[in-house]
Every structure is written in structure tokens, then in C-alpha cells.
């Protein structure tokens, strides 16, 4: 029987579990901890207790598989028009390490049309094998056909680990597949390692807006599936002399899908998307007026970066929602993040605090953004921005 209980003899009333519980589901009753009804059995309190006073029994799980029958590391290589997306190389970088640690092969799965260039690149970036499914009908991502094909491949190839990007498509495809084959899926991992003791994949991800990190395992089901956000993993240096195998797996490609993609429309025309940008210039209410976003655009252009925005400016209709950075927008991790006239509400910080360098420009010296800033300038963004544009234009030609 699965469940959780406090071992009263061992509990010394130190309250560590009370503090650790994210759900407020542990209360002190005198000198003993008591688990309340709103406990979600998340297990976070178990390692928090230094006295082994929490008995947490997971019991037998259902649908367990014979994990010895699974081997190899797979990554889903997203591509657009036959060109792999940067996330595919990042996943290969992460996957290479895992495959080496497990002494197994790294395979890239690529689905689309006209993929020969893509296959070559994926091998250069670390794949031992590329399994390519090519068909005119697969040129554009489709949840239905891609998941059908992928599941066929997994059932046949039995990988022990499968990584996907936490992209729009990856976050749709991965849970669909995991649900069909009844395996575990951990979203948005920031660290992936092999447990040296038993070879399991340790998947670490942020929880509660990044305030807590949780390491998650999937012990009895395969493949162990995880998604990884943009820019979290580092790609390998491409080596075009690397040898790899390109295979064409036999799968049945759905002739007709009930889900139809009628149109693909581009509304963001910057060179780089927020998710993939090395530099992001973001504007907030401190810009004073919607038209002042043109300075943000200009600086982003000079630096070859993307334009971000605070929630307040999006809600006020100054800029489109696609640009919003933060908990209800996008999570980004560029090398340099400029926060211009953004005070730094906790929801905004949750979406950008993993940037390597944060530059904050704000009139208010007490603005929370300065707490996470690498470099801070107390000043009016409207005064600083034109000078910055000039300075970088001169320096970068």
C-alpha cells in the first residue's frame, strides 16, 4: 500500500518537514509533525527530514516494464525546412554525455522532408545514428502523424532514454507519446545525469518558479523521457569527419490525418526568436510610452538580439504577447539580458534569472531587478538607451 506517515518515535519536532512542504500539508501537533489531508504525496519532505522519521512507501507501480530490454539514448531532432533547429544540437550535446556514460549509442530521430543535409549535420554534432523518416506529408510538424510515427519507432527500437526540446512542438509531442506508451516524462530539465550506482537517469528541474529544484527518476518504465529548454544544454563542436549511420526505419506513415495544419504564419521577423537568442533586450513600463519600444528594437537589432517585454507592457497593449518574458510568458536564458525600465516582479525574474549576464536599467535604485543584475545602472531607460545604441553601433560597426 502506498502512503506516507510520520514515525512518531523518530520525530523530534524540528519542523524541517513543515518548512520543506510546498503545500502546507504538515502541521505541528505539540512536538510531533502531522501530515494533513491536503498532502499530495510529492515526497519532498522525505529527504528534508534528518531523522528518517517519515515513512514513505510508494508501493508497486503499474505498467512497469522489463527495463533490461531497453537500451540506447534517443533525441528528437526538430527541423524546419530540412535544417535542424539549434535545440537539436543542444540535445545531442546532452545525449552524447549520457550515451557515453551508459556505454551505449546516441540516435537522433528526425521526421520531415528532404533531410539528407540534416542527417549529415546531426552526425557532425554527435549522433552515432540518425533515423530519418522522410515524406512530403511530413514537411510541416503535425501532432498526429509525428506522434504515430514516433510511437512505432519507440516500440520497435526500445530506447532507454528519450530527450526532446521543451519547445512548442516538443511540449506537445512528448506528453502525447508518454501517455500512449505509459511512461514517465519530466519537463524542462536543467540537468541530466546517469546515476553511477544503478544507471538510472537523474532528471533535475526547477519547481515553483525556480525557487526549488527537484531531481526526478523514472525507475520502472521506459523510455525515461525528459524535455529540455532552449539554451540549457551545450552543443558539441561540429566535426564533419565523424562517421555515423543514417537509417530509414520502416514505419507506416499515416496517409490522412484528422489534424490538419492549414497555414504557418510568421509574425515575428527578427533574426532570432526569444528562446534561441544570445542577447535579449526587454522593455518595461519604465519606457513611459508604447512608441518608445522602438529604442528597444533598435538596440536589439544592433546587438543581433531579440526583443522581450514585461507583462505590464503586454497587458497594456504596447507589444505582442509573443514577446512576453516571465512566468506567464516565455522562459529565456540568453548570454546577456537587458532589462530596461523593468522593476523585476518575481514572475518576471522567474522567466529570465538564469541568463548569464543581466543588465538592469531602472530609475528606482530599490527595484528588485537590481538584486539579480550583474550590472546595474540607476537611471532613466529613455536617456540611457539612445546612448547605448550609439555606443554599440560605434563599437560593433
Amino acid at each position: 500500500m502506498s502512503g506516507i506517515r510520520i514515525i512518531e518515535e523518530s520525530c523530534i519536532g524540528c519542523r524541517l518537514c513543515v518548512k520543506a512542504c510546498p503545500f502546507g500539508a504538515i502541521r505541528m501537533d505539540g512536538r510531533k509533525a502531522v501530515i494533513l489531508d491536503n498532502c499530495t504525496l510529492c515526497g519532498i519532505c522525505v529527504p528534508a527530514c534528518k531523522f528518517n522519521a517519515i515513512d514513505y512507501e510508494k508501493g508497486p507501480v503499474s505498467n512497469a516494464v522489463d527495463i533490461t530490454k531497453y537500451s540506447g539514448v534517443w533525441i528528437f531532432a526538430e527541423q524546419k525546412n530540412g535544417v535542424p533547429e539549434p535545440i537539436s544540437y543542444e540535445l545531442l550535446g546532452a545525449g552524447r554525455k549520457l550515451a557515453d556514460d551508459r556505454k551505449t549509442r546516441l540516435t537522433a530521430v528526425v521526421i520531415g522532408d528532404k533531410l539528407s543535409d540534416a542527417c549529415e549535420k546531426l552526425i557532425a554534432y554527435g549522433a552515432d545514428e540518425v533515423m530519418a523518416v522522410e515524406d512530403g506529408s511530413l514537411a510541416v510538424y503535425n501532432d498526429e502523424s509525428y506522434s504515430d510515427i514516433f510511437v512505432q519507432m519507440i516500440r520497435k527500437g526500445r530506447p532507454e532514454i528519450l530527450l526532446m526540446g521543451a519547445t512548442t512542438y516538443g511540449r506537445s509531442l512528448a506528453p502525447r507519446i508518454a501517455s500512449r506508451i505509459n511512461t514517465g516524462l519530466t519537463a524542462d530539465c536543467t540537468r541530466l545525469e546517469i546515476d553511477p550506482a544503478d544507471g538510472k537517469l537523474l532528471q533535475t528541474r526547477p519547481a515553483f518558479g525556480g525557487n526549488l529544484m527537484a531531481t526526478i527518476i523514472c525507475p520502472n518504465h521506459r523510455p525515461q523521457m525528459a524535455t529540455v529548454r532552449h539554451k540549457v544544454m551545450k552543443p558539441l563542436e561540429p566535426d564533419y569527419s565523424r562517421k555515423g549511420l543514417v537509417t530509414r526505419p520502416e514505419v507506416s506513415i499515416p496517409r490522412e490525418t484528422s489534424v490538419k495544419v492549414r497555414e504557418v504564419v510568421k509574425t515575428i521577423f527578427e533574426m532570432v526568436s526569444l528562446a534561441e537568442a544570445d542577447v535579449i533586450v526587454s522593455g518595461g513600463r519604465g519606457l513611459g510610452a508604447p512608441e518608445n519600444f522602438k529604442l528597444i528594437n533598435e538596440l536589439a537589432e544592433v546587438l543581433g538580439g531579440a526583443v522581450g517585454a514585461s507583462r505590464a507592457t503586454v497587458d497594456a497593449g504596447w507589444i505582442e504577447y509573443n514577446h512576453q518574458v516571465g512566468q506567464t510568458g516565455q522562459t529565456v536564458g540568453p548570454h546577456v539580458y537587458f532589462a530596461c525600465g523593468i522593476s523585476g516582479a518575481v514572475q518576471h525574474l522567474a522567466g529570465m534569472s538564469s541568463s548569464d549576464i543581466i543588465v538592469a536599467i531602472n530609475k528606482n535604485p530599490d527595484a528588485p531587478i537590481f538584486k539579480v543584475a550583474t550590472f546595474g545602472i540607476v537611471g532613466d531607460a529613455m536617456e540611457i538607451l539612445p546612448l547605448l545604441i550609439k555606443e554599440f553601433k560605434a563599437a560593433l560597426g
Partner: protein
Amino acid sequence: MNVIVCVKQVPGTNEVKMNKETNTIIREGAEAIINPFDTYAVEEGVRIKEQTGGKATVISMGIPSVAELLRQTIAVGIDEAVLLSDRAFAGSDSLATSYALSKGINKIGDFDLVICGKQAMDGDTAQVGPGLAEKLGIPHTTYVRKIEEIRKGYIRCQRMTEDGYEVIEMPLPAVITVVKEINEPRLPSLKGMMKAKKAEIRIMTADDIGADKDLCGLKGSPTQVVETFVPVHDVNSEMIEGTPGEQVKRLAEKLLSMKFMTVK
């Protein structure tokens, strides 16, 4: 058209603060809220019901007290609220949650569209919508920012992508997950609040929805948390002083010397 909206109870957003000295979570006012993304799903469900006729039902899985929270959705136009509540559901990961919700939705029956929020504010996984669609055996589209057309057996909607959107057609029934761009949720009306107060929230157990308990809760969850820790952010903040001109010069020098900005 009948719509079922999935909502989740999450801790109020400001709740999770860290105590810097002890590295533990500070809990202030254990107030629970409806996941903010789900309020857009509720609004969209109510709008579709109003435009096409039919019924909008809300479903959630959680502890008994979530029932009170679900009243808020009735106040903004939802007709009926169902809460799946059973100890057997405790400890569910996204797979087990998808399963339980699919059983609950099938129990409610006779639906054209299921709407979920893009993701939950606490877990951020965005997995339950597609996972649920799979368990229901129907198609799904994520990140919907606009429904262009909906009628019996057909939906055409826009899915937000990294650089724009796609127009997608699906047969109904189907599942969509929505982003906040899709609408602006209404405030509760006085009449709605009266109705919410009197409404009866249906509570259903695992047995009521015919769920296999082996597939629910901890037993039905392939993933488990083995460790949690507080991330360390070492920020050496440097405030750049001087006149605006000096500040900018020094900032540019520093950034350029770090080589990130030289590649164009």
C-alpha cells in the same frame, strides 16, 4: 455545444518565498487559487457555450476544499462543476492525472471540446492537456491563441509558435490548451455569485468514475521525486555609477570585453 474545462488548484503565486538564512520555503497565507492560465480556459469555455448553446462544465482533481474554489468558475458562467477527490488520486504525476481526468470526463460524457490552460503555475509542465487527449483517444492542439471557427464536429484554431502561429483544423471532440492571449476573463456578475453560492459541486471518487486504482495516484505514476534542493544564485551585482554618458561607456566596455557581444 458542450464544453468541459479542466482547472487546477495551485498555491497563490507569491506564496513560495525562500528564507535566505535557512534555505527553506517560507509559507505566507496558504491561500490557494485557480491556476491563472486556467481562467482563460474557463472564459473560452463560457464564451463557446454562450455562442453555440449547450453546457460548460468544469472538472478538477484535488482535495475536498477545491470544491469551494470551483464556485468561482460558476460565478463567471460555468454551469456545473465536478471535483474528482479521492485519496487514491494523491501523488499523481502528469500521466496519472491525465488518466483520472479522462475517466472523469468520460463519466460526464457528451462533450464536444475539452479546454485546458497552457500549463499550471506550480508545476509548469504543460503535459496534462496532450496526455489527457491521448487517454481520451482524441486529437489535441496546444497553445491556442484564437478559435477561428467552431461548429458541431469541427474546430479551426490558431496555435502560437515561437515565431508566429499556425492555423490548425481538427474534428471534434478534441482537446485544446489555451494561452492568455486568447481572451480577457470576465469578472463575476452579481447573479453569477448568487448562483455560485447555491451551486452544488459534484464530488466523484475513483469508484464513481470507474477508474482503475492501479493507474491512479502514486501507483499510476512512473516518475518520482528523489531529492529537492534550493538553487544557489551567486550574483555579484555591480552598480555602475557616473553620468549617463560615463555609465554607458563603462557598461559597453565591460560587455564587449566579455566577448558575448562581438559576434554578429
